[in-house]
């Protein structure tokens, strides 16, 4: 009979190494999956992991896909460190896009450099407010934030559909369920000409730096870590657990909302029902792949962006089903978590059965 025994001290080296091993294991298992689907596995892996680097446009697309992933994952990582599980970043992303986008539309066709900051604030506020619903229910009724935040994703997506079919519908859009295209003052500036890389990339980078300082230098970061590692010690130190819940859920909601607003006012350029493409869920993988560490999240965001871009290419050139890429991303998290078990536990084989 197999048995898991906790290790005395998990290896620091393996903690850093397993994300890399998980990527390699995913490549191998993914290759097998592609082979079963009748595709050349070596070619598929090359298209997903290597080709995006060879093409200049794909390289900037890494930034476009990576920015929202990193921004959302940074927010989620704060909560995850405190054992607060916001699974609904996708919903906060959508509400952020709605609030930011609607603000931009409301100012149509006014000009001014103040419009984008106002939209960003509205987007962050929208995501924040959406995340405060699970936060309030958890604080007041001890409701499970995993379930509440997840269910609110579907509410948010339906809300987006309803609004772009109704009040936010483009008056000149032949009744298509989508908003007007954002005008120039409500569209993010491009930072690399000829690409879609927008100013949100810079904000994502800034969030990495701020999170790093917060976690390593600031009292709040200390309190978040303490709450996650030893809740009783946190209470003894005088940390207000409810305050940490509100801050962690609120911050991750605000960052996801900001990412949603960037997505709408950047690459997409309008509000459409198809706006949510799963960044909020993929960011959970990014957060764990990056070991909840800001620098790690930056790297992990790059890896996941790669699977998005390479996956799209693979869909086109190899006619792989879109779901194969989702499976691919899921495998990454699966392998990582499985390896984490082996870091903290050792497997023992015992003959006698344990009562």
């Amino acid at each position, binding site marked *: 009979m197999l048995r898991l025994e906790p290790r005395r*001290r998990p290896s620091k080296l393996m903690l850093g190494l397993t994300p890399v091993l998980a990527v390699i294991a995913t490549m191998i298992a993914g290759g097998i999956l592609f082979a079963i689907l009748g595709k050349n596995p070596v070619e598929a892996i090359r298209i997903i992991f290597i080709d995006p680097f060879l093409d200049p446009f794909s390289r900037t697309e890494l930034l476009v896909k990576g920015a929202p992933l990193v921004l959302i994952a940074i927010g989620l990582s704060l909560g995850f460190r405190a054992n607060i599980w916001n699974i609904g970043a996708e919903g906060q992303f959508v509400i952020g896009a709605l609030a930011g986008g609607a603000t931009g539309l409301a100012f149509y066709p006014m000009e001014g450099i103040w419009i984008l900051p106002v939209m960003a604030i509205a987007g962050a506020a929208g995501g924040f407010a959406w995340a405060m619903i699970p936060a309030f229910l958890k604080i007041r009724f001890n409701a499970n934030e995993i379930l509440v935040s997840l269910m609110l994703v579907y509410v948010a997506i339906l809300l987006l559909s309803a609004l772009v079919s109704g009040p936010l519908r483009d008056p000149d859009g032949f009744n298509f369920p989508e908003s007007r295209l954002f005008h120039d003052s409500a569209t993010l500036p491009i930072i690399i000409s000829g690409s879609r890389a927008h100013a949100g990339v810079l904000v994502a980078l800034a969030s990495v730096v701020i999170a790093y300082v917060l976690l390593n*230098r*600031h*009292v*709040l970061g*200390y309190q978040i*870590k*303490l709450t996650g*590692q*030893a809740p*009783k*010690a*946190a*209470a*003894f*130190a*005088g940390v*207000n657990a409810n305050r940490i819940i509100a801050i962690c859920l609120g911050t991750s909601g605000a960052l996801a909302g900001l990412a949603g607003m960037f997505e709408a006012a950047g690459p997409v350029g309008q509000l459409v029902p198809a706006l949510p493409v799963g960044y909020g869920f993929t960011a959970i993988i990014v957060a764990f792949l990056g070991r909840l560490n800001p620098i790690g999240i930056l790297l992990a965001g790059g890896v996941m962006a790669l699977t998005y871009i390479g996956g799209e290419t693979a869909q086109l050139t190899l006619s792989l089903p879109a779901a194969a890429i989702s499976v691919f991303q899921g495998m990454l998290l699966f392998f990582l978590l499985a390896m984490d078990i082996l870091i903290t536990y050792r497997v023992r084989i015992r003959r*006698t*059965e*344990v*009562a």
Partner: protein
Amino acid sequence: MTLLTIEGLTKAYPGVLANDHVSFTIEPGEIHALLGENGAGKSTLVKMIYGLVRPDSGRMALHGHPFAPHKPGEARAAGVSMVFQHFSLFEALTVAENITLGMENAPPRAELSARIRDVSQEYGLPLDPDRLVGDLSVGERQRVEIVRCLLQNPRLLIMDEPTSVLTPQEVDTLFQTLRKLSAEGVAILYISHKLDEIRTLCQRATVLRGGKVVAECTPADETARSLAEMMIGGELAMPKARSFSPGEPILRVMELSLPSQTPFGTDLDRITFQVRAGEILGIGGVAGNGQDELMAALTGERAVAEEMIVLSGRHIGRTGPDRRRILGLLTAPEQRLGHAAAPAMSLTENAFLTGRSRQKLDSLGFVNRESTRSFARAIIERFDVRTPGAATPAQALSGGNLQKYVIGREVLQKPAALVVNQPTWGVDAAAAAAIRQSIRDLAAQGSAVVVISQDLDELMEISDTFAVLAGGALSVPQPAAGLSVEKIGLMMGGNLAEEADHAEA
């Protein structure tokens, strides 16, 4: 014929001999008390009988046949059942479903329900098999556990502190049930430290102290006082009169009442005491009598009415832990890893845990790493904590070293009042002596100190005044110098009201 014979059972855990050549016998139909302080080895012993723990050496025989259960299932098959102090029931399932889960060969549901009704009627433990356990009172849940055992027709029923969760009426009912079982030939091994219960219920008693059998007796022939003396031992070193001139009252607790938050906790009942500058108040008593709740109220983790706790004339009952530290009330909880210190964090980070505000280790919301590190180093140096350095995680330290660290962390902050719970629990003798000395030095410098402990020797050694916490109530503190074993035995026996009258008279 003797039902269960235990011969020379020994079980060692790292650093402690939990059972040291324990021998005794249980006769059929006998209600046999197992008596002892916390840590005397009662739990280890019954776990060995029930097959949860394997003895290092020694023998057991059941009905004259060798008996060495490898798991509880084997013990149950041989006729040994156990009702634990803390139940293992699923609240979302019905009584019958819960009982099914614990049985090896459960009969069909209808038949089982009928049997549950029969057995519960027969033994005066009314129980509806179809009710959800979540809707039952604590006493009713215990009935589920008992009925579960009775359905297996045990020859020996082990009961671990069964009355600690019951109301007086429920206790009476339980005793009737146990007497009926006894009359039918079922032996009962009854673990308790409630001396009056043992005297009324049990026919024989085996007393454990420090893992050894120190006495066997017939409880009815003893007094609560003599039983307590057997339990705590006659060789208790009584404190000599110490020159001690206390100053002004620093910490006062007034009529502190607090309902427990856990199902097995103890409600605090109008606890009142004061500690003066330079005074060490020792609070004794068996674990689970309100120590955790009292500690939570004093650390500030649980808010109480503002006027219930007074520090230097200031009401702080609702004040949070951090603010209390600034005002001068520092505390050290019993559990080192996970409560007093975060296991995976470094000693430096753990220094920040309580040192933050009083030592001003942060500025503008940022952790001042340099001053935090030097505070941690000061604790390590001053209290002789053996560790490679301040960057070592707390969980890498031995129990004694970490205890020196978490006590030193508070002592070094020069508290006006210090409250420590179990300061030397699980700590080797040298570290324990160092910790006690540091507590005494702190009091000598004019701090008011409260030491909550289950180690009477320790309390006698360091206390100026002494009180006992029993059932959530505190006896009237009295000078430790005038105490005797008899007096402490009486206080521990739960005769608090009587004791209080004496003290006031």
